[in-house]
């Protein structure tokens, strides 16, 4: 079969392109080229599939691909960089949904061919992609809803939640096993619908702060569901690409939960965040703790005479749309001979690496962006740290206070620097709802107000010094 061999070779080339594309993502210099190579690989794979002898009708394929592709392109061009987590969640859900639908269809085809039960490989792969694909689809949509603030970001819980979810999982698995031995479409549909509900009820109780982990986890799920469809269809490319994504999602999930010092299980089942914080700026004796303020003009004078300034951006910076003024400030200080860098915590932003993208969008050169491991040894030599819109990731309680819910989370140790300036709207607690003693540290000064306004003022004051 000449044509089939050529298709297999095309799939091999496509797989090679995917791997090369990911390899080139290891440096910002080659990353864009890498993405292009992966896209070319995808094009090769799709063309090869279209000439497959089994594909006979093209009308519906053309229509569906055109509609889907146009919507995808439109949304991808329009989306704001701050909304990137939502988009990734949404696209992830679509992939999971597609995998589940393929499984449902394969099951139907087997039944229509007069089979009464699925072979072992087909059974496992079809059931896996139907269930995991459905969970990923529904879970991603809930994550999208939370991130887009269509749903409340706080954990939504109800009585016996874990028990019900556990029971649901058992029922779905039992149904899937039964359906494998007795092919009957409604059985699988029911299993898929239950899996959808499971996806919803699994993600609803997860707090907004944990969404980065959830998205990475669901990314891995969709990848594995795609790989399972590869087994069902006997398609090597689906297996390779699906597993690549599964590996990536798994690594990111581990990395994110490590950065929050929580186990993956704790994130997925812990219903953490929002409302956990008990004390609020009050000492053990019940008195309000002191908070020292600084004005923009005083800060400007200090900054100009500093040798090294480190900026710690948090998601609050992006919410205030303050990326551009902060870049202006950095440029001005660099012009004056101050050494400036940005220290980025792995969970700054709403998804892994989000803050880097937001700063890159504001034209901050990537060689000014330091990872946590690079930044921490630098703080003792740093004259001034500007903490802008970040809270939990600089909370020393994560290092010092065993009773804190944050305890053990790796933080940016800004309190090792000479001076700490915290830009904050008010004294409200952070995303995790935990009090931050850094704000009451004698070397800390607060600059209250909207981060964008404060930074714009600061830029003017620095220019005036």
């Amino acid at each position: 079969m000449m044509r089939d061999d050529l298709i297999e070779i095309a799939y091999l080339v496509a797989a090679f392109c995917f791997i090369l594309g990911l390899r080139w993502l290891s440096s910002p210099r080659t990353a864009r080229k890498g993405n292009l190579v992966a896209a070319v690989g995808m094009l090769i794979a799709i063309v090869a599939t279209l000439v497959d002898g089994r594909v006979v009708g093209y009308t519906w394929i053309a229509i569906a691909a055109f509609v889907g592709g146009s919507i995808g392109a439109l949304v991808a061009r329009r989306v704001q960089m701050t909304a990137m987590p939502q988009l990734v969640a949404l696209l992830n859900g679509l992939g999971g949904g597609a995998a589940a639908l393929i499984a449902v269809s394969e099951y139907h085809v087997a039944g229509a061919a007069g089979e009464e039960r699925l072979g072992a490989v087909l059974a496992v792969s079809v059931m896996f992609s139907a269930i995991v694909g459905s969970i990923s689809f529904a879970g991603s949509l809930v994550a999208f809803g939370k991130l887009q603030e269509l749903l409340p970001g706080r954990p939504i819980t109800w009585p016996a939640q874990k028990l019900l979810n556990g029971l649901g999982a058992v029922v779905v698995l039992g149904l899937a096993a039964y359906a494998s031995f007795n092919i009957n479409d409604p059985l699988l549909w029911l299993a898929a619908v239950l899996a959808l509900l499971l996806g919803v009820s699994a993600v609803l109780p997860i707090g907004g702060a944990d969404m980065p982990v959830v998205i990475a986890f669901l990314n891995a799920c969709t990848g594995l569901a795609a790989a399972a469809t590869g087994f069902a269809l006997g398609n090597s490319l689906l297996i390779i690409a699906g597993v690549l994504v599964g590996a990536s999602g798994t690594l990111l999930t581990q990395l994110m939960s490590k950065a929050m010092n929580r186990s993956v299980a704790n994130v997925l089942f812990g219903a953490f965040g929002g409302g956990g914080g008990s004390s609020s700026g009050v000492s053990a004796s019940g008195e309000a703790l002191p908070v020292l303020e600084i004005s923009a003009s005083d800060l400007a004078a200090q900054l100009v005479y500093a040798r090294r300034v480190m900026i710690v951006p948090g998601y609050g910076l992006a919410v205030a749309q303050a990326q551009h003024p902060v870049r202006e400030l950095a440029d001005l200080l660099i012009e004056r001979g101050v050494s400036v860098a940005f220290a980025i915590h792995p969970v700054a932003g709403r998804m892994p690496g989000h803050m880097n993208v937001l700063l890159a969008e504001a034209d901050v050169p990537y060689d000014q962006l330091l990872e946590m491991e690079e930044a921490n040894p630098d703080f003792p030599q740093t004259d001034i740290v500007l903490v802008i819109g970040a809270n939990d990731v600089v909370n020393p309680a994560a290092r010092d206070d065993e009773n804190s819910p944050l305890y053990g989370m790796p933080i940016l140790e800004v309190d090792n620097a000479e001076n700490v300036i915290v830009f904050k709207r008010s004294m409200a607690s952070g995303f995790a709802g935990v009090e931050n003693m850094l704000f009451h540290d004698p070397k800390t000064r607060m600059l209250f107000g909207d981060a964008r306004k404060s930074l714009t003022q600061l830029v003017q004051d620095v220019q005036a010094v």
Partner: protein
Amino acid sequence: MSLITELVILVLAAWVGIEVISKVPQMLHTPLMSGTNAIHGVVIVGAILVLGAAAGGTVETICGIVAVAFGAANVVGGFVVTDRMLQMFRRRPEPPKENQG
């Protein structure tokens, strides 16, 4: 393809995936996620096989149409948005400092 061959592919792909992806710096983790997102859009290949071979069956046709549309949105959206992000990553234009990536 035999099951053993498929399992060999699975294990090797997982290994390559872990090796390659663990070298991606944190700075690029968002593009990594959206890029791998686009790559799992490869399910469109499966969706095309389902829909293209659907001999008029209602279930296959409906599932196939939706799956192809989902897959296409996933692929196109993923690659386009990743490209948009990556084109923003620039080095400092003036005096070249050492690269910390």
